[in-house]
């Protein structure tokens, strides 16, 4: 009886150690394979090969092209104007972006091209997203190079200034408002 009890205790102790090891291993595994570079709207953020800035955020319920309604959404469109300046010796590449709101992630509305900027130039483009108006608290844009071969890389995260307190104002602003998405432009860094 004593042997059986000590064996049971041994087995329980072994399971406890395995549980501890599993918890430790889970905690030690890196969740993200990227470095977050945080910023705010209107302020350029330094990254590899240049600077990135969000200059404007617009919301609406339909898209306009040449004064015509192009697309409507039952939700909300968010257009984020981004400027990338290649201040370094290499070209600046921003291959992909998405919007984050707490546990929700919104991909880009259309499969859009890469924001590729040659050294000495800056590119401005509107990145378009379709979001659920009920889930826009702390809306943040995340941008990264999205290369074929990627290691531990940089991701720019810029909060768009939509805290829970004024989310309602953003929702109201989007109602019956159109967004004209401008084309990508490039110019020499002034």
């Amino acid at each position, binding site marked *: 009886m004593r042997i059986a009890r000590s*064996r049971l205790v*041994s*087995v329980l*102790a*072994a*399971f*406890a*150690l*395995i549980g*501890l*090891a*599993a918890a*430790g*291993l889970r905690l*030690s*595994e*890196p969740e993200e394979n*990227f*470095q977050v*570079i945080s910023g705010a709207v209107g302020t350029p953020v330094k990254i*590899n*090969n240049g600077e990135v800035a969000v200059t404007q955020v617009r919301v609406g319920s339909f898209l306009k092209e040449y004064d015509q309604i192009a697309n409507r959404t039952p939700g909300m469109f968010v257009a984020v104007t981004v400027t990338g300046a290649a201040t370094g010796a290499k070209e600046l*590449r921003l291959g992909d972006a998405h919007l984050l709101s707490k546990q929700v992630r919104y991909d880009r509305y259309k499969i859009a091209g890469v924001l590729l900027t040659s050294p000495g130039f800056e590119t401005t483009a509107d990145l378009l997203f379709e979001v659920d108006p009920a889930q826009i608290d702390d809306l943040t844009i995340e941008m990264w*190079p999205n*290369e*074929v*071969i*990627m*290691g*531990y*890389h*940089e*991701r720019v995260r810029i909060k768009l200034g939509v805290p829970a307190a004024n989310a309602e104002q953003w929702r109201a602003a989007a109602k019956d408002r159109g967004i004209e998405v401008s084309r990508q432009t490039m110019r020499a860094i002034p």
Partner: protein
Amino acid sequence: MLWTELRVLIVDTGRVWWRLLPVIMGVYLLGWLGSEVTLRVATIAGDISAWLALALFAFSFVCTLAAAIVILTLAGRELGISQLLPEDEREIDDRDTSLSHLLGITLLPFLALYAAFGQVAEAAHRLVTQQWVRYGFLSDQQTILGALYDLATNHLWWLVALLVGIYVLRRLLDYVAERTGLRILGLVVVLIEAFFMLLVIMGGIRVFQTFRVWLLDRAVMQWLAEIQDAMARFFAIFKIDLPEILTLTWTFFSDEVWPILIDVVAQPLFWLAVAALVFGSRVLSLAELWRKGQPYAARVPGATAFARYSEKLAFRRLGPPPKGIRLVAARFQEAFFGDIDDKYLPALHALRLVVRAGPIFLGSYIFAYNLVVIAKNYLDTLINRIVGGHEGPFWVRWEPVFDVIQDALVEPIRLCLLAVAFRRCLELFARRANAQPRRAVAPPRTPVTPPAPVHAEAHS
């Protein structure tokens, strides 16, 4: 007792690692250098032939494995594992001392572990990445994976014929090497075996994927889907959402249970079993006998699971040796099953052996092993934080350097832990074997009856 096991494993590992640090670090770095140089040459060799690149890729694993075996042997020597054998049984056997023989015996289980735990795929990915960088993504130049994919999907019988041909060639060279005693042939056999194994692993994955795609397109899969839908409709009558329950169960199993089973529990045990093979068949046979509580004197050549195939045959054989067709059949059996018995089964037997070392030891060992992995993860995070985020080309160029920084620190500790854990296994088996005869001679427990009082006798 738990604390003792943990203390023995952690403190002894630290001691052995510290004592052997310069030597094992040197050996590890040599192995790493050999592996890296071969991998780079394999990338360039891809210009000539994808198959040549695969052969060199196999050699890079042999370099890593040779370094691991040397480190394990050094740690085993430092811990006096062979000293645990009784003096009259400490016979020097070429099988247990020659590096090429050790490589031959342990290559398959080591490569199987590398494949099972993703290291082969990781190395293949690195090679392919290097080839992409060299040729560009839109190049027509055939990569290793491209060649294997083509062979496995379009010329499956060629792949099978290639595998059979390589296996026969290896067995033939094995036989010649055994007869002539030429060590260089032993090394060639190891290289061919590594090439064979990588072909099986990487080609096998492609064949499996092709089979899976073929299977998904069969009518039987539609029948299964229909059955699944019918069952879902049936359970819906009782307000039971069967698909939801199955999805949740599967998610829990695949995301929570499976990683714990594989990464936390199976990986340390498999590594310990394979490391045990490095310490030699005699040590393992001794451990097996101790585990069964048999005295070592009871050992008869061929009686244990770790004996050579020829010894086992001699042990089992009754009557005169076979003649004629039976002799041919016996030779054929020896050529194929002897290989399996000498190289593949010992790994399974070693696993069975270490699993029976007791729950406290196993729990402590698994915990200590995972501490090493956890340290490696944090080191990886630390290096990433220090170096910061960079573009792909930066990592292609510098990743080997960052890898060696963490691997050179962690891998020798892991190998020392394996040696310490195996020695502890042997000590536990020996203690049990010594305890059992004592129990056997102890008088049987019978209920104690008090002697009759003398005065009662006087009254009668």
